[in-house]
């Protein structure tokens, strides 16, 4: 199918997917770095003197967060990033499995990352209110709605075209 036959909305969704994948990817890298740092803090204690992360890591310890929790968050974020990035290719090719289903799983993973971050990370670290989380949850819901309601037929038609 030529690029012109692809609905513009799918191209726009792939751009949005890319930007969300990048932002989750950035957060994922920081989760892994934090887990490494938290391991060091647990082994050696909080370093003496001026240290920028003192308050933050103290807060993480107070909340009872372990490096494993941060690594789980990191792995979830990594999964969401990879799924969202791969689904871009599926959107552009209008592939039912790579686009619609991988995009759906990516959206669910993105929502799970947001929910687990709310549950595990200290409130002050989330730097905002619950409505900012509602805002973060909007994209996964929007993505799933678009893939399964608005663009469903485009993916299925393309699959039929390929099989005949």
């Amino acid at each position: 199918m030529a690029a012109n036959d692809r609905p513009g909305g799918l191209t726009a969704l792939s751009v949005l997917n890319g930007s969300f994948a990048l932002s989750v990817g950035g957060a994922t890298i920081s989760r892994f770095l934090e887990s490494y740092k938290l391991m060091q803090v647990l082994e050696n204690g909080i370093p003496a003197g001026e240290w920028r992360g003192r308050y933050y890591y103290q807060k993480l310890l107070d909340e009872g967060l372990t490096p494993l929790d941060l690594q789980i968050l990191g792995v979830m974020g990594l999964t969401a990033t990879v799924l969202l990035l791969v689904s871009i290719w599926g959107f552009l090719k209008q592939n039912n499995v790579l686009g619609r289903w991988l995009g759906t799983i990516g959206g669910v993973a993105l929502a799970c990352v947001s929910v687990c971050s709310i549950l595990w990370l200290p409130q002050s670290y989330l730097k905002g209110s619950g409505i900012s989380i509602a805002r973060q949850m909007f994209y996964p819901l929007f993505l799933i709605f678009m893939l399964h309601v608005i663009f469903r037929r485009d993916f299925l038609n393309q699959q039929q075209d390929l099989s005949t």
Partner: protein
Amino acid sequence: MNKTRHIGLHAIKVISHSMRSGSGVAFIFLTILIGLSLANLVVTPIELELITVEELQDSSARAIGIALATATLRASDGDDNQGTLTSRMENGDLIDLGMWARYLVIENPVLLSITVLLLGVVLPLLLPLGSFTVISGDVQHRTVRYLLPRTSRSSILIGRWLGSMILAWSLIIFLLCSVVIYLSIMIPSESLEDLIPWAGRCFLALFFLTIPYVSLGILCSATFSVPMVALLATVGSTIGVPLLSLSLQEAWEPLGNLLYLLPWGYSHELLSPTTHKVVEASAYCLLHGLLFLILALLKFRRADL
């Protein structure tokens, strides 16, 4: 098939097409995201306990009072009898404005009021995203020609105008519902019994505010055959009119009335506590919308498609 049915069909088609097009996805996504961000901006200080609801009511009453005074008193600066701020104070106008600010932030849920006031400023800039391709997209690709043997030009234009309106209203309802549900759960002082009637009133204000701006988008879409030019013209005139009128007013007072080319000059009165002012502002919005729609119809009827 009768004309009403044609208009309905065009409206439904434009909604489904908008949701499938790139600009439509961008419009829906940006409107919801920016709307929730504005609500977040208002709610965050309360949730992080940086400020209490009472403190917010005090400070916002003052800020909204000043904003309303600036918007309302400048409207009749040219009137010699009421020219100075002192004379307006003597006439009791400032007391009215104080009551107005009080009505918005003390008598009604403050967080919702501030969110809607901010939406009133931002929505005019977002609404063109949902309407700039409605006519120009088809004209640019010459696909509108295939419709013309089966339907009239006025049905196409009115149907698409209606579809764009319904999409914009649906987004506003979704946005207000999200904010109301969130506030009722998270902020104990904002009860659902207060929030629902006020949200309905705010929706009515935004409902009327949407009409002229969507109609302006349709007018630009019918005037320019290139969608990006139509978008630029709509956003440019939406931002340009207030900037131009405020700067030209410095040179010659009557030029300040250019502000009334768009609803910027009276749209704040849609949330006035006085019913007749609300009715007046709503009627002006309808008239503005009707004027833009008639101009778009005239333009589209004569256009070489």
